[in-house]
């Protein structure tokens, strides 16, 4: 099955084409759209599972699946459209198609009444196809097709309801922020090609240790440029600003693209080119710092948000920070492990939020209420109307808060432990560890706050609205249930040895991470007692955060938006997200547009070149006499014609 791995890309691609055609035709055949949309994903999942099973039997080396020559220029630059099937790409593909299938299924219920139903599934299918190209690509340029392709789909889906200006703005902002990062990836490719003569991952890993000095300037520059791309795609400081706005898209999109898969592509790319990063300790340290800072600052913003999706968005930024902290310590497989568990519980949280919004929206609509369906201050007590959603979101909350035995505990604990271990060699990592701990406390807090404001206490949106609240249909709760199981037990994928586990993901990824590990310094794992202390501490932080969050949210009960007094001081700064957007607008975007308009377009182009340069030349020519007088009369055509005709006639006569 491995040679046919491209089928996994082809099915969603065909699904996108069919659904795109149906959308263009204005078709109302919702059933057909659903069958094609979900069916193509399930087919891709089946292919991926088959490939996975075969890979489990087979050798540990990666298999290169050649499709066709893409850019065959010279022997040196000969880029193939080829896929690389190995333990990393297949693990990613399983997450993408698995969670993707669930979210497609959920969307059937969630988007059911949307007039753009077929268009939605066309975009979503296309996204999965690109995402698979990203992880399966055998070289940077092939992955780059997927990398930018998912950006395209993200752009289209964020701006899905394009008639609201803010949605279109958010889509454009996402694409542009990503493009800033893509500049880095492009430059990294040019440097890699120049110094290694290849862009294929396998050959990069092979040649880099021989041709790059450990800690050398070139490899440091290359890895920093790659990481710039990652800060765009994975919403890290300084390019994270697009992700919270991306919540303008339909909620299943937020779950699939802006939580579970696309935004983790940066982590994937670092692991994919891990050998380069292992050769650049300075970059690794920078990644750890950026990751820890992002985890910390995004968590602080999450503390004060009232929009249920905004909380989850900042939470995603924060959790992505953890993943980068993980890979920044050199623990590549720990980063991937957290990527996987996060995909489970964050998809669950977003879909659960989707169910809540769906219910709120319907009830508000029914009661002709103009309240905001996403503002948690209008919610409360939803556990009564939506017991399933409540229970499942509670599980996800325990998972993300790091309460054992739920999935998030194992992966987050690993990352923090690694940062602590690294901290013995460098205080930078110790600071990162502390930031990570603080972020963990805040994570538990804001998640408890989210659950309390949404599900606990009494409903604040009015009794007429409350009577209209309903649990979501089974096609939506079904996927939630599966994700709930995964969030609860997903940690078992990589149970550490001290609880009798086998570190399955570590072992599975070993063929991928081994070349990089060989270059990294070996560190002693913490002693039994230290390890126990770390674990108990981490659990305590989670529990304290949860309890604090519940207590501070429930008493006194939150006020509805119209009653709530305006926030002051630090709270206001957090609510307004440190005003980073405004800062970028003031310092970068505003001046750039101003310079383009006033200095370049008006000044240089119109005045300097056109009026003074060209106009001046014309005036000189005019002064020269007869040519000028003809220019002024618009007789140039006559002159040119005369010239051409005359020249030919004269020559012909002369030639005779």
């Amino acid at each position, binding site marked *: 099955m491995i040679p046919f791995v491209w089928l996994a890309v082809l099915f969603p691609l065909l699904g996108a084409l069919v659904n795109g055609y149906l959308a263009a035709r204005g078709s109302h055949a919702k059933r057909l759209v659903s069958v094609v949309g979900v069916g193509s994903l399930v087919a891709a999942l089946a292919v991926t599972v088959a490939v996975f099973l075969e890979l489990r039997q087979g050798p540990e080396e990666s298999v290169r699946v050649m499709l066709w*020559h893409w850019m*065959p220029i010279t022997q040196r*630059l000969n880029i193939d459209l080829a896929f690389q099937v190995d333990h990393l790409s297949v693990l990613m593909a399983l997450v993408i198609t698995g969670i993707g299938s669930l979210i497609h299924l959920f969307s059937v219920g969630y988007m059911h009444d949307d007039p753009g139903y077929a268009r939605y599934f066309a975009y979503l299918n296309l996204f999965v196809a690109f995402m698979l190209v990203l992880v399966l690509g055998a070289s940077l340029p092939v992955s780059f097709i997927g990398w*930018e392709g998912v950006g395209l789909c993200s752009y289209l889906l964020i701006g899905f309801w394009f008639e609201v200006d803010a949605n279109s703005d958010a889509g454009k902002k996402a694409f542009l922020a990503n493009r*800033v990062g893509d500049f880095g990836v492009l430059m990294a490719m040019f440097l890699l090609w120049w110094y290694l003569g290849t862009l294929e991952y396998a050959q990069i890993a092979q040649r880099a240790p021989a041709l790059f000095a450990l800690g050398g300037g070139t490899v440091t520059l290359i890895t920093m440029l790659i990481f710039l791309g990652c800060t765009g795609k994975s919403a890290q400081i300084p390019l994270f600003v697009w992700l919270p706005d991306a919540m303008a898209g339909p909620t299943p999109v937020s779950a699939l693209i802006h939580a579970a898969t696309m935004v983790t592509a940066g982590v994937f790319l670092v692991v994919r080119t891990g050998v380069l990063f292992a050769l650049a300790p300075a970059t690794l340290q920078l990644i750890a710092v950026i990751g820890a800072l992002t985890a910390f600052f995004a968590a602080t913003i999450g503390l004060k948000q009232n929009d249920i999706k905004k909380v989850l968005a900042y939470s995603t930024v924060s959790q992505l920070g953890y993943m980068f902290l993980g890979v920044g310590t050199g623990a590549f497989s720990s980063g991937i492990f957290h990527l996987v568990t996060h995909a489970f519980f964050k998809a669950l949280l977003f879909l659960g939020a989707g169910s809540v919004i769906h219910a709120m929206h319907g009830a508000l609509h029914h009661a002709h209420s103009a309240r905001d369906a996403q503002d948690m201050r209008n919610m409360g007590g939803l556990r009564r109307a939506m017991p399933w959603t409540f229970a499942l979101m509670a599980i996800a909350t325990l998972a993300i808060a790091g309460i054992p035995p739920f999935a998030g505990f194992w992966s987050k604990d690993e990352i923090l432990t690694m940062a602590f271990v690294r901290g013995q060699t460098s205080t930078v990592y110790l600071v990162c560890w502390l930031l990570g701990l603080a972020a963990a406390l805040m994570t538990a807090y804001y998640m408890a706050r989210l659950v309390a404001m949404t599900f606990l206490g009494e409903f604040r949106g009015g009794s007429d609205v409350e009577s209209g609240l309903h649990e979501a249909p089974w096609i939506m709760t079904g996927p939630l249930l599966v994700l709930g199981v995964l969030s609860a037990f997903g940690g078992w994928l990589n149970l550490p040895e001290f609880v009798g586990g086998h570190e399955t993901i570590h072992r599975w990824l070993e063929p991928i991470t081994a070349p990089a590990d060989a270059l990294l310094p070996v560190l002693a794992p913490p002693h039994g007692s230290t390890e126990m202390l770390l674990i108990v501490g981490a659990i305590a932080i989670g529990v304290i955060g949860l309890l604090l969050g519940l207590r501070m949210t429930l008493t006194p009960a939150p006020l509805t938006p119209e009653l709530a007094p305006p926030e002051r001081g630090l709270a206001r700064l957090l609510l307004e997200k440190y005003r980073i957007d405004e800062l970028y607008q003031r310092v970068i975007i505003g001046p750039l547009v101003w310079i383009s308009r006033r200095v*370049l377009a008006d000044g240089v182009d119109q005045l300097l070149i056109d009026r003074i340069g060209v106009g001046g030349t014309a005036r000189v020519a005019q002064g020269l006499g007869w040519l000028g007088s003809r220019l002024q009369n618009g007789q140039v055509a006559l002159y040119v014609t005369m010239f051409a005709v005359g020249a030919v006639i004269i*020559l012909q006569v002369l030639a005779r």
Partner: protein
Amino acid sequence: MIQFLASIGYEQWIIHVLLLLPLLAIPLILIFPVRAARWIALSVALIELVLGLGLWWAFDPANPGMQFVTDAAWLPQFGIGYRVGIDGISVLMVLLSVVMMPLVVWGSWRAIDQKQRGFYALLLALKTGMLGVFVSTDLFLFYTFWELLLIPMYFLIGIWGSSNRLYAATKFVVYTFVGSLLMLVAIVWMVWTVGRATGTYSFAYQNLLEHAEVMAPWGGWLFVAFALAFAVKVPLFPFHTWLPDAHTEAPTAGSIDLAVILLKMGTYGFLRFAIPFFPAFALSRTTGLVVASLAVIGIVYAALVAMVQPDLKRLVAYSSVSHLGFVMLGIWGSTVESVQGAILVMVSHGLSTGALFFIIGMLYERRHTRKIADFGGLARVAPLMATAFTITAFSSIGLPGLNGFIGEFLVLIGSFGRYPWLVAAAATVVVFSAAYLLWATQRVFFNRFTNPLNEGIGDLNVREIAVMTPLILAMLWIGLYPAPLLRRTEAAARRYIELIEPHLPAASLPGITTSGMKP
């Protein structure tokens, strides 16, 4: 296919037929009733398409030299001949112009409602001129076609253009004409110099190329004379300000011909004439740095200026300046990769900019405005048009998987060793190009539907779908499988690099040899 083409003697007649057919059809247009004019033009364009597509197979990719060669005496007393041929540098341009022609005619099917005879006759004359420029291997013939093009273009803009058409047409002619006069002087000077030294007075390209060293002492002056003519056409910053006016005022068909073919004549001229004739001067460290810097300034500068244009056509015109900067950078990057990339950018830019102008033309036909501010939210009433525009915009932005990416990627990666800093500066345009096109897309097709005048705008009709579909398919094809195109340009690009290699200064990044491998 190849055997079939050989059996009908395809390679002996194809160029002549392509050149003559449009000219022969002009009298027909003038004889037949007015309403037949567009049908005649379309028939000629379709015949040329069918005949011209044979080049795809008949062209031998392995042969780096001229193919389909004809060398006939015209004015032997002056060493002027009817010398034509096609090689890997020109083959894609010839193909592009025969492919675009039917689309151009069909695309302006309804746009032109007055003086149709004149319009279609000029369009056909333009066609001969464009093809002639790319197939001439005689400098006099080349110059004749080059100047011949000005006339139909001038009238197309001046008669069928919009409000400010005369200003734009005059500016276009003056700008390009001043440049080409110098080129004429240079050509005559070259023939004279070579003739005095060798005894053979000939305008033949091959003859001049072989004796290029005779002209070396005057290389600087001669190169500048050629370069001015070509730089205006490209247009290279700061010689570009005629383009926004010409593009904006021209009718759709004129804008498309300008973008697809006319702009490429400048870059083609550099590759074919200016650099091979005077490589020592053209590729010296100083000249190279000047030209590449101007190219990169143009890339970034034009993108920024495009961002703030209120008129869709002006926006696309500036985007052309930006894209053509990539071609110039690739040419001076002087590697097989960068030169092939430059040729591919020429093709890609033709496709995506042509498609953008088609859609802008469709909008203009419906609403008689090109102002971005007059639109908004059109995706609701014209979803197909919005889709076509978005795909085209992303192709122009350089989204990998579509055509725009391939050429620009090859240009940048191929030029990187020689101009690492300039390539870095040029690469920043990935942000700016997305900024101006996505912003424009948003303000035209997305956002709230504000202007009630747009209510009855109507989506693409069957004719318009038929025009856009082949363009979009070509974007996908080149983006995903450019290998067949690259194969056809490779041998010629390789020979070109071999020709200029002795004159190339060393790469500025350390750690690499000419063979390409790090030691």
